[in-house]
Each structure stands twice: as C-alpha cells, then as structure tokens.
C-alpha cells in the first residue's frame, strides 16, 4: 500500500514536470500563432522592419543576429573547450584534473548577469577603445557566450574522450604512432559524435542565453555585417520589450518565442542523434 502511494506520488510529480513543458509549448504557440497568421509567415520571418507598436513585425535581424552570435560563440567555445578537454583527457597529470574539473564545473554556476556585468565593464570598453565602434557588438556577445558555453562543451567532450576504449589508444601507440598522431587520427574520430553533441548543446545554450547578451549586445535593430556592430538576438528581443508590450506587440513577442523554441528543439534533437550514433 505504502509502496503504491510513493510510486503514484513520484509518477504524478514526474508527469507534471513533463506536462509543464507541454503546457508551456502549447501556451506559446497558442499566443503566437494568430499573429504569424495575421502578418504572414514569410513577412514575419523575412522582413527586417520591426516596429511592433506601428504594425511592422519583421524578425529577420533577430534571427540573423542570434545565428551570428551563436556561431561566434561556438567557434570560441569549441576552440577553447576542445583544447581544454584534450588536455584534461590526455596530457594533464591526475592531480591537476582533480582541481581543474570542479573549477570548470563552477563556471556553469556563475549567474549570467555576472558574465554580462564583466562584459559591460571590461570587454565592451576594451573593444570600443581597441577597434572603435560603440563596443556593444557581435564580438562582445560572442566572446561572453563563448566563455559561458565552455562548461557544457568541456564536460561532454571530456566524457566522450574518456569513453574511447583504452585498446584503441594502446593499439595506435603500439603501431608506432606518436602521441599527437594517436590523438588526431584515433581518439578524436572515435569520440567525434560525443564532441559534436557537446558543440550542439553548447549552441543550444548560446541561442537561449538572454541576460548577458542584453547587457553587451547593444540590441540595435540592424542586420550586423561586421563583428563590431551592435546586434539583437531573439531572446533579448523578448526580454527587452515584454515589460510594456500589449496586444499584437505581445503576441509578436510570443511568436518570437515560437521561433526560438523551434530552433532550440532542433538543436537538441541533433545533439540527441549525434549521441545516439556513437553507441
């Protein structure tokens, strides 16, 4: 009897967590779809004129902005993260792994507003003084996000590297390959799908990050064609304007959320498949 009760209780809690996700999705689509229908999907996605209180609902600059910022972030994050994972998996003495790994995980626990604040106070003025422009830019957002996705990328690629059977490595070394050759020709290909999954999950994180980006991106409504131009992402569009938005404006923000939701789901699905093909 008691067993059953606990079992039921856990089931209810588990189901309500999943139900919450479904309800959120339904709610977003419920609120956003009418506007997309009203404006027209193509006009909504491909127009770059965003003035929602005056009846213009084009989110192209935000889509492009999100993609640009995410790409830059993943370039930075992949380069730093993969190097770090390789070092930890292959070269680092065991005591330093024991110190470094928790420290990297700690990175994930720092609130995003702190990253944003450091970005505003240090990174933005540095970019402004070194390269010119307002400082609030694609570059600033990409760099901040690049650091923020590090824990995800490092943790997952490290797992992938450590999951490569020892025999592969030993076999390669026994055939006379150098350590670098082994790493490059054997370890990396064997861990490839896991590493890619790490990158994709990192991208998911970067696409969804809001606070830090609002603080350093400048949020201008242009399609940036230089790293030094300000940019607005999908997330910051929602968070910036939700305060006083009403009517169609609010619906347009929900529709922005729909686009974001679809992008995130796509990325997560890709990551899931990437991990699956490994096994």
């Amino acid at each position: 009897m008691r067993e059953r009760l606990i079992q039921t209780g856990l089931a209810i809690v588990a189901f309500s967590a999943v139900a919450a996700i479904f309800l959120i999705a339904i709610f977003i689509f419920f609120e956003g779809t009418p506007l997309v229908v009203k404006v027209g999907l193509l006009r909504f996605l491909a127009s770059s004129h965003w003035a929602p209180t005056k009846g213009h609902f084009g989110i192209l600059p935000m889509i492009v902005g999100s993609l640009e910022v995410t790409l830059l972030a993943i370039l930075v994050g992949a380069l730093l993260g993969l190097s770090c994972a390789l070092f930890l998996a292959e070269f680092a003495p065991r005591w330093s792994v024991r110190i470094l790994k928790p420290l990297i995980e700690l990175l994930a626990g720092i609130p995003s507003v702190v990253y944003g604040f450091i970005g505003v106070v240090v990174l933005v003025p540095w970019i402004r003084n070194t390269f010119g422009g307002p400082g609030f830019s694609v570059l600033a957002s990409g760099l901040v996000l690049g650091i923020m996705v590090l824990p995800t990328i490092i943790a997952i690629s490290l797992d992938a590297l450590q999951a490569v059977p020892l025999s592969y490595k030993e076999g390669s070394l026994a055939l006379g390959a150098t350590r670098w050759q082994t790493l490059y020709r054997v370890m990396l290909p064997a861990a490839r799908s896991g590493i890619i999954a790490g990158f994709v999950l990192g991208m998911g994180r970067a696409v969804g990050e809001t606070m830090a980006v609002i603080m350093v991106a400048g949020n201008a409504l242009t399609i940036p064609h230089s790293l030094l131009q300000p940019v607005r992402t999908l997330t910051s569009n929602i968070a910036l304007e939700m305060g006083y938005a009403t009517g169609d404006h609010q619906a347009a923000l929900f529709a922005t959320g729909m686009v974001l939701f679809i992008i995130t789901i796509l990325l997560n699905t890709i990551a899931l498949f990437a991990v699956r093909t490994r096994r």
Partner: protein
Amino acid sequence: MTNRLNFLIIGKRMSLHQKSVFFALFSAFLFLAVAGCGTGSKQKLTIAGSTSVEPFAERLAELYMRNHPEVEINVQGGGSSAGIRAVTSHICQIGMSSRHLTDEEAKTLHQFTIAYDGIVLVVNRQNPVRNLTLEQARALFSGRLRFWDELGWEHRRITLVTREEGSGTRASFEEMVMKDDRGEMASFSADALVQDSNGAVREIVARDPAAIGYISMGLVDERCSALSLNGITPNDSTIRSCTYPLSRRFLFLTSSPPQGLTKQFIDYVLSPEGQRALAEEGLTPVSE
C-alpha cells in the same frame, strides 16, 4: 483550460486508486487557485489611457494596493485619446492623458495634473556640445547626422542610445522630437543601441565619449551632461512651465467631481507620498 489539459494527460492510464489520489491533489490545487484569486468583495477602480502615463499609474496603483488590500486597481493603456474617450463614456473611472485637452474635452472633463515629464538629452562629460535644436536632435536620432564634427566637435562616429519599443519615455520622445512640423514621424536609426531602462542608457552615455541618449529629467546626474534644446535649459521650472520643448503634463481625468475610491486614489497620487514615488520614477512633481 490548462487545468483540464493537465488532467487529460495524467489521467489517461490510471487505476481507480491512483485516480482518487490524483483527484485529491487536483482538488486541493483547484481550491488553492480559487482561494488565490477570490475577488468577490473587492472595490474596483479602472484607469485607462496614455501609454506614457501607464507605467507610472501602475506603480502608484501597486503602492496603493499594498496599503489597501481591499482595493483592486486595473491600469490599461490604449493612448491618451482612447483614455479620454473611455472616461467620457464611463468605461473607466479615471482617464490618463499626456496631451493637452481640446477646448471641447476640457469642458466636460475634470483634470488633475499628477506630474510633469521632462525628457533630457544627455551626452558624455567629455563632449563639449551643450545645445541642440529640435531639428538637429531629430536628424541625429533618425541617423541623418552621423559624426560629431557636424555639431562642432571632433570627427567621431556618434553612438545613439534609445529605449525599447513600448517604453513610455520612447513614445514621448518620438511624439515630441521625431515628428516634424507636418506631423511626419521619422523612425529611429536602426544602428541605435537599445536599452531597457533610463539607468542603462545613462550608464552607456557615462562610459562612451561618443554617446548620446535621452532619459527622464529626474534621473540626470553628474556622470553625464544634460543638453539644452533650442537654447532652453531643462530644469524643474522650465519643465513645469512647459517652456522646455521636451516637457509635458501628465493628467488624470474624471467625468464628474471624483468621489469615493476615485477621490481617495487621486488624493493619494497628489499627496507627498505619491509625489515622492513619481519623483523616484523620474518625473517632476507638481510642486516643490
């Protein structure tokens, strides 16, 4: 509707026993939900109108309801004209307007000035420019003027800082600066940085020598320089007399002499406490 959905998803494959447990929890949840929004006996007040006044009215309503839990104040936007229409036709008790009333409107409505709104152009302390004309300000923010040397400083690309769409300050600025003599509204330059608070705008202007932004008078401090417009310095007296071009009066309107809750709320807004709250939000109070 959401509750029923929740039930459908969970209720599908459950034994009778499971169902009873579920129903117990579910009804407890429903009970809480209903208890949470039990509004039966509350006194209600509806305020509607200008979207520039709306955020301030919302703040005041929030403060008032904190001390008067028996009252429910509902603040809606829609614009000054919609507010005037709504209060004239008794759809709401108080209308909000950020524009002057026409003679006809003034005849039928009772006006209460709750505060003055002055919007000030601010630049970095290093910037020697001290005065702009309204036309220059419009050219600047629509992106037609791009370098500071066109305004008598060094050759430096201007960094524009504006507010997010939906903000009352932005709406006022658009109305008073971006509209030309023929009533054509220029749109903001797409390159302008967008920030979601007066404080964030001020922060950028304080740090970037090339920046220019606009904030409420009450939030100007020594970290940035306020510009005069058409030669008129913004201060409390030029704003109260509306001689400074970017100033206007925020009005509460009623269709008859206020009574009951309507009167109590307007009295609260005009009290030292209400006026202090408005000053904290950046407005200029009615009197010193």
